């Protein structure tokens, strides 16, 4: 049975480890780990059958020392305040590690959107937006898509917020459709970022990308785009999975066909030219690169010693528990931590926000080349720091991120 994991506990333990290494003073430590704001809202929704349901909604702003808060909104039946706090904290470190001028935030609603109609989800989104509108805004806190939310959800948020303000405010959310101020390249940005850091890692480790065997856990936006782009640069994707099951082909899966198949059937199960495998054995498949891009807490002390990959690129947030992380480090597996590996999304979100504020839009090539530079620079800084300090990539990334936020906090000082 899988160990029960509280993401916020993981988050605090990760922070304390880094704070010790950075010799942070107790006051700064407390300031950095406690969220700045936690808003809990009740979200009443009229369902299609005329009944009322009240959902729990959250918006947590962890830190705004380096700029406005930034982070996604997720709709999931397992959303809790602790999970949202952890995700908001990780957003602070993620924005700091790629050096975009944002703090961290996260939001969520405890609901099962798979059991709701599109109209119900729209009403839920609009009411939630109204409830959190007191703390969001282009200069305050900019939401984005996350688990079970997408460009349509962002459009409803932008519209509701704009109605409340009395004018259009495209900069209030990112991940919007192009028609209303979205950015080219945003959709594939997280997966593209994963591809860039994997490519850099392969270079640094002196390996060859061609025919490297890749296993991708999760086939949503991040997993499918990472798989597509890794296939494009010469890797062979041998396994993919989603919540319904896992499929495998040791000769390689045609990812374009898999994307079309999932688009039409909604799941990877029964994908032609693949064989089904036990999802519990999926992460331990023999491969060179493992991309966990589903939910958190997937690599635990129970399966970490069985993982066969040389490189793990964490497309998801918090897929590895701290115990598992130590096992992986001892085994010499090169882990590209979540706050670096999946930072492509927030980087292009930043580009989208900049474009919205300037009312001037860039080409997809411009967006992708700026993203490549951000990801390569961040990878190099973390890799150089890890090498110099003989530490894991995760510790190096956290140290750099926490140091940047600590320095911003110290320089700004505490009011009054």
């Amino acid at each position, binding site marked *: 049975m899988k160990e029960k994991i509280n993401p916020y506990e993981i988050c605090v333990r990760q922070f304390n480890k880094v704070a010790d290494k*950075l010799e942070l003073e107790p006051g700064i430590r407390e300031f950095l780990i406690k969220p700045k704001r936690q808003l809990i809202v009740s979200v009443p929704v009229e369902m299609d059958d005329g009944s009322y349901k009240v959902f729990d909604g959250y918006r947590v702003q962890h830190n705004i020392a380096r700029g406005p808060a930034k982070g996604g909104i997720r709709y999931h039946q397992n959303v809790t305040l602790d999970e949202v706090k952890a995700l908001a904290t990780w957003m602070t470190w993620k924005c700091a590690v790629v050096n975009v001028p944002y703090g961290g935030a996260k939001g969520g609603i405890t609901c099962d959107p798979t059991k709701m109609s599109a109209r119900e989800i729209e009403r839920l989104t609009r009411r939630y937006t109204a409830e959190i509108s007191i703390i969001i805004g282009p200069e305050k806190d900019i939401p984005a898509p996350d688990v079970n939310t997408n460009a349509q959800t962002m459009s409803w948020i932008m519209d509701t917020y704009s109605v409340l303000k009395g004018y259009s405010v495209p900069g209030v959310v990112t991940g919007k459709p192009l028609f209303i101020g979205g950015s080219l390249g945003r959709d594939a940005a997280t997966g593209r970022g994963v591809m860039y850091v994997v490519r850099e890692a392969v270079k640094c480790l002196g390996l060859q990308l061609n025919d490297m065997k890749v296993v991708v856990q999760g086939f949503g936006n991040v997993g499918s785009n990472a798989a597509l782009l890794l296939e494009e640069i010469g890797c062979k994707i041998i396994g993919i999975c989603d919540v319904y099951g896992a499929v495998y082909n040791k000769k390689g899966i045609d990812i374009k066909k898999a994307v079309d198949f999932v688009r039409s059937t909604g799941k990877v199960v029964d994908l032609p030219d693949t064989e089904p495998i036990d999802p519990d054995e999926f992460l331990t498949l023999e491969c060179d690169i493992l991309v966990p891009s589903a939910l958190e807490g997937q690599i635990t002390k129970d399966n970490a010693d069985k993982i066969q990959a040389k490189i793990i690129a964490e497309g998801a947030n918090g897929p590895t528990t701290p115990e598992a992380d130590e096992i992986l480090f001892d085994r010499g597996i090169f882990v590209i931590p979540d706050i670096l590996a999946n930072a492509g999304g927030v980087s292009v979100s930043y580009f989208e926000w900049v474009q919205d504020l300037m009312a001037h839009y860039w080409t997809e090539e411009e967006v992708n080349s700026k993203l490549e530079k951000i990801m390569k620079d961040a990878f190099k800084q973390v890799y150089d720091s890890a090498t110099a300090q003989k530490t894991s990539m995760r510790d190096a990334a956290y140290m750099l991120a926490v140091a940047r936020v600590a320095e911003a906090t110290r320089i700004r000082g505490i009011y009054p």
Partner: protein
Amino acid sequence: MKCPYCGKELSKVEALLASFEKTYFCPYCWHDITNYRRQEQMSLSKSKISTKGQADERENKSLRNMRKAV
């Protein structure tokens, strides 16, 4: 690590940032320590370049001497 300008001891956080940020200013005297770091790196590579430059100069001198001789 100490700031090369004001001599103030940098904290672990500041030393880390001074080592890996693209640009970093000493938080006590606001001098650009990155420049100092770059100058340090440059002076290291310069010492190699100057050796090469001296070698080039020697080569040129011998060429001039050879021309004179011709």
